[in-house]
């Protein structure tokens, strides 16, 4: 039998890093897939503020969801990464999908292009 993976200890709330060690976000929630007549399957890791605030109180989650639906650039579903992209856990979670291909960086991209790039000294990337 393969080594068991303690989801709460080694996955939930951990930093998610893509193959380039880019910080995508924290694991804010874990999604299970319910299947008829079969045990549930771990489906995905959610990277979304609304999932995190919902763990505190459902009303906070609702408020965060409302804000996300109203203001988030692109306005899609909550960002999540399928568990098939999981490489390893521990004190960080490594995934094999680039951060740019997830919705987790929607706000980062929007701020880069619409706000930071318009302030002098903020246009170019890289090291200072």
């Amino acid at each position, binding site marked *: 039998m393969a080594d068991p993976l303690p989801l709460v200890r080694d996955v*939930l*709330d*951990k*930093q*998610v890093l893509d193959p380039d060690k*880019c*910080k*995508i*976000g*924290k694991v*804010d929630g874990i999604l299970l897939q319910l299947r008829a007549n079969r045990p549930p399957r771990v489906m995905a890791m959610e*990277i979304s*503020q609304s999932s*995190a*605030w919902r*763990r*505190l109180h459902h009303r906070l989650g609702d408020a965060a969801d409302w804000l996300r639906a109203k203001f988030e650039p692109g306005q899609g579903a909550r960002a999540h990464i399928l568990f098939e992209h999981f490489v390893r856990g*521990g*004190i960080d979670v490594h995934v094999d999908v680039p951060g740019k291909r997830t919705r987790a960086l929607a*706000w*980062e991209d929007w*701020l*880069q292009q619409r*706000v*930071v*790039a318009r*302030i002098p*000294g*903020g*246009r*170019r*990337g*890289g*090291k*200072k």
Partner: protein
Amino acid sequence: MKNIMNVALGIVTSIGGFLDVGAIATAALAGAAFGLQMLWVLALGTLCVIFLTEMAGRLACVSHHSLVDAVRERCGFRYFSFLLIGEVIVDMLVLAAELGGVAVALHLVTGIDYRWFVPIVAFVLWLLIWLGTFSMVQNGTSLLGLITLAFVLGMWWMGPPWHEAMKGLIPSAPSHDAARYWFTAVGIIGALFEPFMLNFYASGAIEEKWSLKDIPMNRVTAVVGMSFGATIAISIVILSAMTLGPKGIQIDSYEQAAMMMLQPFGAWGVPLFAAGLGTACFGASLQVALNLSYLFAQGFGWNWSENLKPHEDARFALVYTLAIPLGAVLVIVLGDPLQITTFSMALNALLAPVIVFPLLILMNDRHYVREYRNHVVGNVLVSAIVVIAFIIAAVAIPLEVLGG
């Protein structure tokens, strides 16, 4: 040679990090109101902060995670949300106090109302963080902060009563004004282990790419740097006790605090006090503003580094871009930077357990620090001091507020 330079720079940095508006204000208040009787609080607090700083640095060296990062991961989002709310409130007040400190320093030199300087100081602060690198921000301001050694010179010039100072190191109850005594004690403790400083130190270690080989340097930096910082704070207590205490001056403003430098330095006294206050507060305001960005970025897992261009970590840059003007508005609206300082320092003591106890858990967790775990002495000593400070803060703050 490079190692020696690193240690020297680390020590200078620690002095800069140690001494800020809170340390200067609470030390001056304590000396003027209670003479040398409160030196024991400073000594005990310094011992505690040495342990805490060393732990925060060791955590970063071994796990490459900062304190906030690890708290979110180890203690979960629920706990992190309390820390986030508490630290945002306290850090914003401290940022306002530091900005106010720089503005008051400029007022002392020019005579112009300090409020006029607040927006200018805030803009320069933002510009430095926006364009500067971590080393430039940290080392530049810390080197400038060495001007605070003027307080030590002033104390030597006055010929301090060493015998009485030694007696002050023994804990004692107040002979008068007990509520104010304990409130000031809480303020001193709060100014010593400001929660922002611990996470800033750990984040700095990650920015500078510290690793296992830097553990000895971290230890030397924590012990020597914090002790040097404490020496300056003790000098302020003694100087204040020798110059303001005998005249019955109870400090109600920074103008009154500046008078402590008149006796040893004459006409140069006020400009020297202003230079010390201004540079120390400016350095600390850089640290608090950056720490607010670290707090959000690390807690929510965003990309972060002061060494990256803002384009690479836009959300990190956005936090300090919003926090600095908000801090400026706070200091103008709330007024009286000295009162903001003393109150925010006492709140620091209330918040301290929220960040110190997770740090102790992390420092005993094999997943994070492997074989570099804490000794029992560090655990017990730090827990005891933090619990005592919390209890005193919980009692003294309402007493002081009710007593006006």
